[in-house]
């Protein structure tokens, strides 16, 4: 591990400008044959274009619509998620937490920024921010209000701090007026923030 008795750490010898620092590391690693440039492009393409909250939205819509899938998500979600292709790095051990009129769930990682990548992609800026990590465990109602979400006093808030390799996905309450919609149409109502707990499912046309 990096050594505490070396207060500057090795990284201090790199250029301080972050873009140049990344460039220097990429040059060193490609010079040494340890990293292939085409592999880097492939990783970026994956997380920029193929994996994102649209995956989680499909899961939530199916959860709302399909009783058999819902039962599987409550007891042993990984086989059914794998069947949908939503398995992989940072999503090996999913647990679904369901919002109800009595309970509102919200997810954080106070120690770093753990997030269910296969279902939601790479976390947004606010999720990784010190303010969110520090505050949502202590004053969730104030933090949610900063997202425009006022939780009634009658509803309990459960904050899930992702301290292990379990990844939690919030299942927002199904909005009224969505009876009879297809899973595909339902998925449009499921926002990224509603699956973290800093938002609700909402009408996509509003």
């Amino acid at each position, binding site marked *: *591990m*990096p050594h505490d008795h070396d207060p500057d*750490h*090795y990284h201090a010898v*790199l250029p301080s400008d*972050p873009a140049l*620092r*990344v*460039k220097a*590391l*990429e*040059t*060193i*690693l490609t*010079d*040494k*044959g*340890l*990293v*292939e440039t*085409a*592999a*880097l492009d492939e*990783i970026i393409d994956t*997380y920029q274009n193929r994996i994102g909250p649209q995956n989680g939205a499909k899961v939530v819509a199916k959860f709302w619509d399909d009783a058999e899938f819902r039962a599987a998500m409550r007891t042993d979600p990984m086989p059914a998620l794998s069947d949908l292709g939503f*398995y*992989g*790095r940072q999503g*090996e*051990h999913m*647990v679904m937490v369901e919002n109800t009129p009595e309970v509102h769930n919200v997810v*954080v990682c*106070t*120690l*770093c920024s753990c997030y269910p990548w*296969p279902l939601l*992609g*790479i*976390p947004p*800026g*606010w999720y990784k921010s*010190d*303010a969110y*990590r*520090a*505050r949502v*465990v*202590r004053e*969730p*109602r104030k933090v949610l209000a*900063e997202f*425009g979400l006022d939780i009634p*006093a009658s509803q*309990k808030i*459960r*904050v*899930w701090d992702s*301290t*292990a*390799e379990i990844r939690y996905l919030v299942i927002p309450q199904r909005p009224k007026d969505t009876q009879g919609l297809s899973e595909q149409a339902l998925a449009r109502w499921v926002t990224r923030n509603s699956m973290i707990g800093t938002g609700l499912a909402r009408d996509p046309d509003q």
Partner: protein
Amino acid sequence: MTRVHDMGGRFGDGPVEADDSVTFEKEWHKRALALTLAAGALGRWNIDSSRHARECLSPKDYSRFSYYEKWMAALADLLVDRDLVTLDELKSGHGHGVSDVANKALRAQDVAKVLASGSPYTRACDVAQQFSAGARVTTRRPAGNVLVDGGHSRLPAYAAGATGTVVICHGGYVLPDSNGHYLGDQPEPLYAVAFEAQDLWGAQANAQDEVILDIWQSYLGPAE
């Protein structure tokens, strides 16, 4: 006992910028993510040791670095510490010759397979499960690694010495306190434990709210 990353409950950070929804604010952020994952695929460290490398940044660096700057600093430290790159190479900005583990480099055609295969952290476990759902448990205090002084651990300081209720028994999981220092998986039972918000934060917290953390068995004892 704690480090700068352990910020849960801290005062002073101001409002959350809820509009900051971008995943990659700058072009180099994508490069930083990809480099970290590609270098990680060489297998010279693991999720826990890479987290610990970020946690070992000095408080000054940790606070002033943006998210991906932390990743880059930790990657540089890991590369040298794990003998993939020399300090001279880091200083010069160039690699001096091809690495003898270059054959392990992640190839473009394998990226999808590697990312989709993940790394499961469940393990068969010899340690008997000590608690069941509904059990009242108390976390260790002080929080911290008992194998390595100042080492990696996943019990936030705000939950040290707190009493809560087991809500989920997850089964056997790799122990980060050991894995983070290349001391083996040492799997043990992991639990989701619910704490009353007022037990953590005092009377100003909402009486019915809860905070739930995943906690390894060795961090826990029967409620005091």
